[in-house]
């Protein structure tokens, strides 16, 4: 009874205090929880924003790292220049990855199960994937589609990208909306995209679709994936950024690249020209490159129909002069006549049959060479000696002649006749033969080991295969503009020289420290056994004349005046190893009597002054993968 009483009394004593306390506690808890949640939401927003920014800049940092490293060859620390893909994605060696795993992490962009799988690649090769944002699930099946992976030079640093993919740009990579030709229809989707100095162009294809074989630069796509550490988690973010980049240098279409000249170019006078233009890649020391990093180009290039016609006419004149000289100087047995000496090269042109191999006029046909030669010794019916053989050289074996002036020459031979002088191949090294013995139809000749010829190199795309005319009509101006930009950024640098032609030092620059030399007066006239040599860029505002003097230049020589000229005269010696760019309108006179002057193409020498410049970024895009 007493116990029950106490219990009853205790209940009554509890009152409202507990309820109130509980209620207050509940309310405060709810408010606290709300604030915590709000705070957490804010924190998450901040974290996501930070993660997104971190991934963006991580991806970008990777692109910048690779953009820097592709300037240098692999012989330099971290260099990638000579490891870049030489074919399009999907083909062997078409993709190069640079990986950047964090400590203990595996980054395999080819593993579909990996969070870092390259789920964009299938849009860059012919995988059958539908263009658009669909994520890829496969990689190319072509053996060796990927070059051996490289690694970030910044390993151990906070650069957070996972991988960079380097590949050539093709039209497929930007289809369906941003094809270079806009329609995506004018060429196969896997056509390479090139840079002409001003805009992207589709490679014209042909025998060598490489951009540098067509006077342009290869456009590379750098694709970077960055993912934050919490990828897939609440604060993870992925960014896929792309650069389209192109090397800062130039790739001219010809060892001598010019616009239409103000007057008919002169490429030689009598006989076999002593001067030689060679579009094959050469090393810095002027030797023929055995493993060049660039393609051979034509010896001559121009950016206009008029220029091509002028060059064709000039080359035909060279051919005619050679044939006239050979036929007038050589007998079938290789002895001289008419008081002229018969050199091995001229005999090779003349041939060993009674009829000359080539004629310069008349309507004779192959095997029945006409008379019209100046010496009159090969008249009458031949025995098929006028074969027009190319002598086994690697040139084009002649061309289809057309009269660039449009003026019919009734005395000219029919170019369809293989005996016509227009079919003489100027890329034949036999023209510079040093000895010869008689042979069937043509003498057997000994040629110099470097097989040089008056006009040799890669195949052009004109009727005369010594000439290349790019699709872009601004190629000369673009090239000159690129060099001018380089010059303007070099002003005030230690290697920049603005100097009068009368105050030239004998030499400028070295292979490791190329110079930029700008002639301050109009004409650079080298004469009286003067010698000028150097590495880098030589800019001549008006005219270049070499008379009884030596010019040895490794790099780029630019003649910038449309009213100027290039005259390489008697006694000129030396070489331009790189490229000679001549402003449209400037006249060209390469006299026959020049003694052993050489113009050889060297991408190595051309790249030299651009060495410290970064790859140019053509475009940047953030893709939604």
């Amino acid at each position, binding site marked *: 009874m*007493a*116990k029950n*009483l*106490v219990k009853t*009394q*205790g209940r*009554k*004593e509890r*009152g*409202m*205090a507990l309820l*109130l306390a509980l209620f*207050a506690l509940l*309310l*405060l808890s709810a*408010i606290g929880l*709300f*604030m915590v949640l*709000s705070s957490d*939401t*804010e924190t998450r*927003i901040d974290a996501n*924003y930070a993660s997104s920014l971190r991934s*963006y800049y991580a991806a970008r940092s990777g692109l910048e790292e690779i953009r820097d490293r592709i300037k240098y060859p692999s012989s330099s620390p971290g260099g990638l220049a000579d490891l870049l893909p030489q074919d399009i994605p999907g083909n062997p060696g078409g993709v190069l990855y640079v990986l950047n795993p964090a400590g203990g992490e595996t980054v395999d962009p080819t593993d579909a199960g990996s969070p870092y799988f390259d789920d964009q690649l299938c849009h860059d090769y012919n995988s059958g994937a539908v263009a658009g944002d669909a994520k890829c699930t496969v990689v190319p099946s072509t053996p060796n589609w990927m070059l051996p992976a490289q690694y970030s030079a910044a390993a151990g640093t906070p650069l957070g990208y996972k991988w960079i993919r380097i590949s050539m740009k093709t039209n497929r990579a*930007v289809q*369906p*909306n*941003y094809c*270079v*030709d*806009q329609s995506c229809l004018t060429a196969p989707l896997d056509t390479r995209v090139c840079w002409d100095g*001003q*805009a*992207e*162009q*589709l490679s014209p294809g042909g025998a060598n679709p490489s951009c540098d074989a067509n006077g342009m630069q290869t456009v590379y796509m750098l694709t970077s994936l960055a993912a934050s550490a919490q990828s897939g988690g609440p604060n993870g973010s992925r960014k896929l950024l792309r650069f*389209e980049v192109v090397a800062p240098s130039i790739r001219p279409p010809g060892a001598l690249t010019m616009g239409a000249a103000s007057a008919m170019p002169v490429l030689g006078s009598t006989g076999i020209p002593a001067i030689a233009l060679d579009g094959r890649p050469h090393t810095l020391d002027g030797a023929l490159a055995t493993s060049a990093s660039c393609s051979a180009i034509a010896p001559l290039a121009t950016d206009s129909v008029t220029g091509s016609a002028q060059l064709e006419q000039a080359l035909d004149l060279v051919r005619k002069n050679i044939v006239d000289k050979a036929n007038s100087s050589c007998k079938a047995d290789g002895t001289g006549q008419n008081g002229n000496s018969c050199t091995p090269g001229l005999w090779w042109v003349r041939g060993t049959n009674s009829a000359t191999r080539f004629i310069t006029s008349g309507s004779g046909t192959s095997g029945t060479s006409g008379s019209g030669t100046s010496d009159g010794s090969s008249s009458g019916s031949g025995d098929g000696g006028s074969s027009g053989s190319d002598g086994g050289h690697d040139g084009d074996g002649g061309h289809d002649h057309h009269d660039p002036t449009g003026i019919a020459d009734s005395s000219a031979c029919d170019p369809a006749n293989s005996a016509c002088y227009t079919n003489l191949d100027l890329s034949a090294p036999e023209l510079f033969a040093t000895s010869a013995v008689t042979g069937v139809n043509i003498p057997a000749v000994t040629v110099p080991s470097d097989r040089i010829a008056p006009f040799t190199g890669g195949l052009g795309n004109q009727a005369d295969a010594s000439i290349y005319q790019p699709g872009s009509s601004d190629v000369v101006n673009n090239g000159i503009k690129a060099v001018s930009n380089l010059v303007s950024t070099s002003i005030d640098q230690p290697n920049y020289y603005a100097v009068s032609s009368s105050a030239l030092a004998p030499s400028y620059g070295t292979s490791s420290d190329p110079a930029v030399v700008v002639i301050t007066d109009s004409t650079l006239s080298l004469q009286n056994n003067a010698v000028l040599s150097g590495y880098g860029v030589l800019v001549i505002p008006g005219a270049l004349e070499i008379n009884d003097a030596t010019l040895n230049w490794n790099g780029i020589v630019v003649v910038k005046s449309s009213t100027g000229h290039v005259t390489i005269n008697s006694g000129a010696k030396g070489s331009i190893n790189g490229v000679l760019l001549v402003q449209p309108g400037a006249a060209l006179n390469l006299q026959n009597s020049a003694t052993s002057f050489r113009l050889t193409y060297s991408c190595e020498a051309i790249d030299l002054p651009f060495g410290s410049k970064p790859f140019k*970024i*053509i*475009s*940047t*895009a*953030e*893709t*939604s993968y």
Partner: protein
Amino acid sequence: MKRTPNPAAGVTATNKVAQGYTLLEMLISLLILAIVTGAVFEQINAMQKKSSAEAMKLDLNQQAREFLDQTVRDLHMAGYPSASMYSNPLSSPSKVAAGLVLVSPTQILLEGDVNNDGNVYSVNIYYKASDPGDPNCPCVRRSAVGKVDADSFSQPTSLVYTETEHVFPPGTASGQSGEDLFAYYDQNGNAVDVGSGVDISTPAGKDVITAIKTVKINLSLLTNQRDPESGGFARTSMSATSRLNY
């Protein structure tokens, strides 16, 4: 009535029970309860005000951040795809993004594939000081419209836009936020003076715009209601920097 102490239940308890509540005790209890309850509700009220204020600030922050995010993304894609990506860019101008077209301290007109969908858009981001039909101004509006085959100044005007409301007037004059909505910098980080605005229609304007490599966005927002705690309008300022990619 007198009770006899019960040893088993305890004397004290028995006494308290026996005492009951007096009026005085009741009043004191009510007073204490009122004080406690008042204190609790005072805190709750403060919490509610704080919560309300924080919610408004959170909303401001989110608005500001969304605007900055969007603008940074737009600027990243400005100029993509560029004219140099085409062999003949003039054949279809709608596929060519001009990048920055017009810039001023309070406006950016740009072109780019901002939606990453393969189409070029003309994007107009501008400050609107007042709009009789829109009580939420001063505001910043952003409209995007697909580019057509016309020059950058002849693009259609979109009637649809997103709006960031209750913007504190940007500028450096008295009563303004102290910073322009958009500030521009060259590749060396030096400020680019755009005056009251330049565009690419003139060579001089084009030169100025070409020099711009980075854009800084400064946004200050005010709450649309008074802060129940302070009685004033809460203000949030936020800025972001975007490097141009073209």
